[in-house]
């Protein structure tokens, strides 16, 4: 199961730069990142090429880090790309905890990343239904 590094931080200037500094220092390449903030704190998610190394570097920098499993699906970067996947998920009545996407090659390929309660199940289900669910090595080797 592919994982991303999830980091707790205070909502204050300079925190993100400290994280990217730690990641750069550890030779970690960031594929995609999202940040959400709540009452005075935030959570940053990093999809990277070396999640274990990323987690260690961020911990060393003083941040609480968790590695969370995700389901990453490769799809066409074209109209309706995402709309072929989401109805499938809806048909299983699965609630998305978080989701985001990024483009690999303009007009050709995009990746969508889902965070759900039971990622293994969702991964298998989407594979069975013709989606291109990425393996760990696919994802980290992008």
């Amino acid at each position, binding site marked *: 199961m592919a994982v991303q590094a*999830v980091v*707790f*931080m*205070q909502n204050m200037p300079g925190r993100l730069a400290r994280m990217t500094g730690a990641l750069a220092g550890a030779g970690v390449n960031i594929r995609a990142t999202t940040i*959400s903030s*709540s*009452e*005075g*704190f935030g*959570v940053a*998610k990093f999809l990277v090429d070396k999640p274990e190394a990323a987690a260690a570097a961020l*911990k060393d920098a*003083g*941040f*609480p*880090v*968790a*590695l*969370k499993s995700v389901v990453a699906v490769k799809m066409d970067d074209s109209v309706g790309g995402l709309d072929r996947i989401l109805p499938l998920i809806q048909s299983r009545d699965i609630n998305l*905890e978080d989701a985001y996407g990024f483009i690999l090659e303009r007009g050709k390929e995009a990746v969508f990343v889902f965070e759900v309660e039971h990622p293994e199940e969702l991964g298998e289900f989407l594979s069975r239904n013709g989606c291109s669910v990425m393996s760990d090595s696919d994802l980290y080797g992008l």
Partner: protein
Amino acid sequence: MFWDKVKETMPREELEALQSARLRDVAARAARSPFYKKRFAEAGVDAASVRGLEDLRRLPFTTKQDLRDWFPYGLVAADMKDVVRLHASSGTTGKSTAVFYSRADIDNWADMVARCMAMTGADSSDVFQNMTGYGMFTGGLGMHFGAERLGMLTIPMGAGNTKWQMANMKMYGTTVIHITPSYALHLCEEFAAEGIDPKRDLKLRIALVGAEPYSEGTRRKLEDFLGASVFNSYGLSEMNGPGVAFECVEKNGMHLWEDHYILEIVDPKTLEPVAEGERGEIVMTTLTREAMPIIRYRVRDLTSVLPGTCPCGRTHRRIDRITGRSDDMLIIKGVNVFPSQIEDALMSMSEVGGGWQIELTRVEGADHITVNVEVADSFFRGDIKELNRLRKSIQGAIKNETLVTPEVKLVEPNTLPRSVGKAVRVIDKRQI
């Protein structure tokens, strides 16, 4: 202006003779409680050997911890059938303290409060609006009974509900209020926002302000805006509640009712009496209490006794404004809070393991408490909802323990400032 002129202006020798006689009685009464029976025995004091004030310093001190350790009934000296009321401090666990009153205790308390009120110029023709909390806290009922004793028309509003407070002040022509300084400042803002000028639109003439420390600057501000004379008040639940000491019209220190209490000022380190007029910790002995006599109670408030006599004619000594505490107790929105209570609440939660810190600020005249809590590395599992649940449960746990609802901020581990060896737990940014 005097409620009980004989007692209030009693010559010092007579007052001290009365104290001596009452100390004999109260020592004997106290010895009937399980706590003092044991404490006196440990100190080698036979209550029957107490003849007067000269024996006071042979008696052991009593602390808040004693009240907690012997909660709830350990200090009750009267027969339970003669106990008619209790008031309690905050806290839902073992940290509570409760104070018990007999019918005579309630009566004496009302009398002292009536003295205080009369001393400020209030009388039976006044309309009194009591704007502090009723219930378990002493501020509401204590002032209420005193106001009725004095004969004022008493409006038992309690705290909050500002619009209704303002309407009542107009409708009933309120002339005297009892209020905390922070709520009074808030009230002023609300009046201004509603376009009400108290000097023009109200009949207010006296504001009894207490339960929290405040400065002369706050007094002037309130007096200017309200057009009322502001009087400082002192009290604590262990010694009944409000009405222990109060300002007279001279507004130079608060007369403490020495026919009901023995006042000592001691050095908090040596526990020896300070020199006349020097600052130290207040120690008080109840002289007339029946249900729960308390001997040489270390109040922990710091002040000094003002030298000389007061032009008002009262012989009871005056204490200066309280300038601090000799322990770490905080007064937040009028509620007594110990940092250890917050620590207990936090440490009862397995998710919290790291540092924490209390930050106190004053927002629009009201106390605001923020508790910063470091998120334990091991707890974080990457879920923002879980963090928000944690925040809410920390808030609930602290509220349960202290009755004060804090803002809870989650912070990164090892980010809260630590002084050498010992964490700085309280940052008090309030200006008083």
